[in-house]
């Protein structure tokens, strides 16, 4: 049977195990092919059918690190040679403290960290199960000072950023805040006052709740205008 059939609408909410398509399709993210060749969803999410690739965009789920991701972490342990960082994931991040010659190539001031410090780091390497290497050596990475940390579902981070940063721009402009979004669902924010921060928090909850309904950017924009109008 070589017929190719799509069994769901694009952006339809699907549950784990739900059949999405039969036949000649490429497997995208969070889907699997069962023994009879049917492509099924692995997670609760939105069906994403693009040309010949079938994927699911999950609506929730814990953060699993990927190389190249930017994450906001909390220093949870410091030993002589490593800094252990909590990145809100089942996997702890490790930053080796440079020694010897290596100290000449980096800005060692960055490594002057305390327990509980919040840092912006990049995922350098991850073996998938136990060893997660982070780095703070690049420009812009390192300890974050001031501001506050908000959290969103990691699965919703792409919506918080938006296509070409469109949503993030709306959030920044409307709330006049500095915002850095970590792929791990942590967001560093510096707002002019509590009023803007509370409005931003509400906007993030709105994005989380309504991410599956199109037109989100406009709604968030009007929401923030209203929220901050007086």
């Amino acid at each position: 049977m070589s017929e190719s059939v799509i069994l769901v609408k694009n952006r339809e909410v699907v549950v784990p195990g739900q059949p999405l398509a039969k036949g000649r399709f490429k497997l995208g993210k969070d889907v699997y092919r069962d023994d009879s060749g049917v492509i099924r969803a692995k997670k609760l999410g939105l069906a994403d059918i693009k040309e010949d690739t079938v994927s699911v965009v999950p609506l929730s789920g814990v953060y699993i690190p990927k190389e190249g991701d930017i994450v906001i972490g909390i220093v949870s342990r410091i030993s002589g040679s490593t800094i252990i960082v909590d990145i809100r994931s089942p996997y702890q991040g490790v930053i080796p403290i440079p020694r010897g010659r290596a100290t000449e190539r980096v800005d060692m001031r960055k490594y002057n960290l305390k327990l509980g410090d919040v840092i912006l780091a990049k995922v350098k390497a991850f073996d998938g199960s136990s060893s997660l290497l982070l780095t703070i050596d690049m420009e812009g990475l390192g300890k974050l000072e001031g501001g506050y940390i908000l959290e969103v579902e990691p699965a919703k981070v792409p919506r918080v950023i938006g296509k070409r940063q469109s949503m993030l721009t709306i959030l920044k402009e409307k709330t006049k805040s500095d915002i850095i979004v970590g792929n791990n669902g942590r967001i560093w924010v510096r707002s002019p006052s509590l009023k803007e921060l509370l409005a931003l928090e509400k906007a993030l909850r709105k994005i989380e709740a309504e991410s599956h309904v199109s037109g989100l950017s406009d709604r968030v924009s009007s929401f923030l205008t209203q929220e901050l109008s007086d």
Partner: protein
Amino acid sequence: MFESEMLTHNLLKEYVKDLVSKGQRIDGRGFQEYRPIEVREGTFTKAEGEAWIKLGNTQVLVGVKADVGEPFPDTPDKGVLVSNTELLPLASPTFEPGPPNENAIEVARVVDRAIRSADAVDMSSLVIIEGKLVYMLFLDMYVLDYDGNLEDALTVASLIALGRAEIPKVEVKDDGEIEVKEEKWKVNLKDLPINFTFVKIGDQLLLDPVLEEEQVSDAAITLAIDKEGRVCSIQKKHGKFTMEEILNAATIARSKWPEIAEKIREAI
């Protein structure tokens, strides 16, 4: 609340302290403002009296179950009240399965102490045969979702559960046999001793701390106020207070009593 167990970050401490110095809290509340209290509609247990309440995002379920048995030897003219708290592992990533730890036990005893010290339940009305047979009330407090301030939430839920409790009447026949009747009687709730929990951040007292406030607080204290405005039980948790701060807390708690008492009465 359970300091060593949760990883807090330094920005949280700094930010919360900074806001407090400006008279603000991270969720926009006033220093003496409670989060919204919601009593869930419906029956969720086989308790004689129950209450499932939300205090902000904290959710607790309390059930009162009755049994009959012997009174404690030193109080033959009083019924028995046993309080137990379970910090369910599903309520927080930091709660582990197992028997109640020191935090669970402390919370249970703080709630129990408020009820007992104010004599809220008429314990002598629980006697069937003095010295031999009394009603035993089990107050089982289940924490379902932990977002700060368990004591206050559990006390409110416990008072509602006690106020709602309908207990089968037990009679002793002439031949000594115990008979359980169809008829039910309600617990006589003579008072509403309400717990008010404050945390100290900087030198300010904040009522009804949310989880983050508990985590960065310098000190915490819970006071129970009865319907006459008297302080009937106190538990200082971590940290230290000046006498003035404690008196101030008591004054604030007294002024908030009517508001919370009203919510409890409505629910009963």
